[in-house]
């Protein structure tokens, strides 16, 4: 291995966090290769057992919500939207876990494993599984979109400053001041139902696209402001000056020199908003935007549960636990990723 080759690898590594580059001890006998940026990230990440556990948990949730829900429905013999007359008592209270209900279509008694979910006596277990699909779709897609838009606008505003910054900053303020709820209600009564039908061939649940667009439209400004502030500070650093002096283009500086430094705030903010979007989905569905009835979601299961907090507290527990564990998994995964991307942030 020639010295030139080793220098190339060093140069390659500096496209990421230059300060994180580790050169293996050079031996005259054995050629040692410097690790690339992504390789180092991966090495650090896989040492974080909690983060790896979170990934396994999220994969488990996806498996449970997709093939699992489908299998459970076929195994149980009714759909998550089938109402059961005897799934409620005469006081309109849903029956508890492991209750037997009569299915008039199959002429058989069936067990509601987690009890009935609402005053329609529907199966909480199946609604929880199917609800996870909607919530994951909404939360993940909304977060990704919001972070992409916010990061791009924030980075551009912070890097270029001047009139570009002025325009983006005013746009941010206008969006922050915009009466989002009124817009959402107007959206619901105009194009809402047409957007609800966009499911990309059944890949997404009805209404997910509407919600995701709403969240994109009104959720980008927070990350944009965070990223802008961070970039304003970073662009004065020496490594950016050095990159400029070597003739690097603006796009290359933003992508290769600034973006890696933004990984930590992006990840931290992303993990925080994921859970927020699960709950926001329920609120917007209440206003008639988004998930149409009778499609279940963790958000609408949670929002209807407090009505029965004295009689069937389980109904708050199931979706609550699902949201908490999933959010926790995203948070821990985010922590792990942040540490992997920027080990200096681990204090």
């Amino acid at each position: 291995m020639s010295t030139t080759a080793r220098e190339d690898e060093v140069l390659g590594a500096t496209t990421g966090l230059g300060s994180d580059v580790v050169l293996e001890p050079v031996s005259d006998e054995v050629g040692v290769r410097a690790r690339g940026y992504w390789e180092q990230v991966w090495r650090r990440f896989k040492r974080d057992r909690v983060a790896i556990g979170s990934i396994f948990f999220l994969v488990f949730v996806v498996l449970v919500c997709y093939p699992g829900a489908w299998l459970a429905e076929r195994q149980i013999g009714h759909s998550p939207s089938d109402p059961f007359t005897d799934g409620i008592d005469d006081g309109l209270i849903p029956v508890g876990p492991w209750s037997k209900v009569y299915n008039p279509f199959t002429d058989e008694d069936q067990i509601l494993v987690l009890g009935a979910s609402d005053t329609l006596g529907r199966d909480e277990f199946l609604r929880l599984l199917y609800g996870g699909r909607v919530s994951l779709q909404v939360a993940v897609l909304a977060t990704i979109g919001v972070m992409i838009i916010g990061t791009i606008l924030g980075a551009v505003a912070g890097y270029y400053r001047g009139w570009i910054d002025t325009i983006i900053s005013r746009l941010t303020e206008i969006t922050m001041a915009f009466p989002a709820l009124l817009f959402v209600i107007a959206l619901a009564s105009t194009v809402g139902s047409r957007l609800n039908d966009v499911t990309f061939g059944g890949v997404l649940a009805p209404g997910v696209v509407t919600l995701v667009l709403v969240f994109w439209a009104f959720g980008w400004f927070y990350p944009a402001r965070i990223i802008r502030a961070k970039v304003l500070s970073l662009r004065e650093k020496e490594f950016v000056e050095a990159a400029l002096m070597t003739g690097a283009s603006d796009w290359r500086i933003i992508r290769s020199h600034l973006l890696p430094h933004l990984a930590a705030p992006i990840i931290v903010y992303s993990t925080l908003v994921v859970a927020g979007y699960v709950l926001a989905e329920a609120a917007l569905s209440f206003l008639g935007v988004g998930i149409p009835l009778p499609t279940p979601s963790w958000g609408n299961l949670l929002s209807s549960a407090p009505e029965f907090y004295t009689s069937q507290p389980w109904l708050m527990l199931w979706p609550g636990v699902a949201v908490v564990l999933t959010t926790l998994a995203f948070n821990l995964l985010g922590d792990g990723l942040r540490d992997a991307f920027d080990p200096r942030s681990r204090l």
Partner: protein
Amino acid sequence: MKGRFSFSVVMALLGVSLLVAATAAGGTTGPSASDKQAVKKGGTYRILGTSDFDHLDPALSYFTHSWNWQGATQLRMYYYPYVKGAASQRIAPMAATGLPRVSNGGKTYTITIKRGFKFSNGQNVTAANFKRAFDRAVNAKLQSPASSFLDDLASVRTQGALGLQITLKRVAPDFLARITMPFFSAVPTSFPLDAEVDKGPIASAGPYYVQEWNKKTSALAVRNPNWKNNVEPFKSLGFANNVDRITYSGIGGDLATHRLQCERNEADLCGFPTTQAKELADKYGVNKGRFQVDQDLLVWRVDLNNEQPLFKNNAPLRKAVLHALDRRFMTAQHGFLAGKRTDQFIPYGMGGFKEHDIYSLKGPNYAKAKSLATPGALRGGKAVFYAFNRAQGPPVAQSVQFNLKQIGLDVEIKLFDRVVQNTKAATRGEAFDITHEGWHADYPDPANFINVLLDGRRLQAENNVNTSYFSGAGVQNWTQKLDAAYSASGAERLNLYAALDRDVMANAAPTAPYISGTSRRLFGPEVGCYVANGQVGTVIVNICKT
């Protein structure tokens, strides 16, 4: 009716309708205070409600809880007496000396006002004060809901200080019933013809008057200092007027909290979550003082839009829908003791109601429904349902959605705030196929259901209450039959309305009534007795606290 109407959902939310008992069942009373302790004079009657009043000006007030206050604060010429039994069904004079003298072939009513009533500001009540109420009601600028009840009014004239002559364009057997509504209460002649009076104190001639109204916060009514229970003309009315003050608060609050406040004696009348009705019934017993249930003149229904392509001239599909609905389940969504299942338009307890047994009340009859819902009748098999987003709105809509899916009709539910849903459904040409509505009688006459809600000649561009947009298709000579029933009186009138009810539901099926509702009330521990009235709800003037 729109205002009262919208509020009827809020009332369902409250779990307590402040509206009242059926006339056939008569006004009902709670346990006598004498059974417990002596009635206390003085004190405050504390009402908790989640919604503010729409108006307290009698010309505009139309929410049910607003009428509850009108009952305590306003002086009307006639009213449905605040008593139990058959007497509560017979219109009686309040400010009038007796029943009107009817002349001119039934088109002219001459009424004499009793001498001695006074407004809270000290002015005497004269015929001019009632004329003012009519003048304000028909003033286009004021936009009083009362105007829709006066389209047959020709003139109102005073005859001296205490005489009032009302002339109609045509004979109207329900006219006397109409003027029992609080719209036609005496108002000071200083009340503007074209503007609302909404700043307290609001002068009125009833036993109490509104001293304060802090919008979206609270209201306070106190005794009319010029109302003397022990002398005529007040004495013969027999109002108890036990409490000194009436308060209304809790606006924007939570029903579960309101319930707790009543249980802790922090209030005297409260709402409660629908799902807690059974618990309250178990805890206090039904009609044993704290948790009171009275049959009401209220029907909830699912309207099928007869002007949109899906249901227009499509009686087979409309009937299929009525066979497919699970009325037991839909009724259950209103909570424990919320009412009886029905498939008829006229509510239980109202004159003209007869049991016809047209559709199944036990559960869906899918076999019959599927036989009617042929591919031709289904017309593509898609329907849009306008539902409201609170209380029983979403579950009833989903129950209908599930039932209709079984006969091949895919229902898309669109949720709105109740006011928005009601406004949209009331707009002619709005693109919905099904909507969820309730109707409480303004006065106990079947015309207030059949003629008001199913006469296509009343349809207009906006603010319709006939939200099935039914004009009579499917029933032979519908409008002639409507007019004949409206003009008739006595037993014949009731028989004709009973026949209309059967005809329209069996042959045209423009709408799907499913529950004939009750009023459920939760009282605080100090309330010893009450009277329920068909128009004004809990009769505040006769409330007794112990």
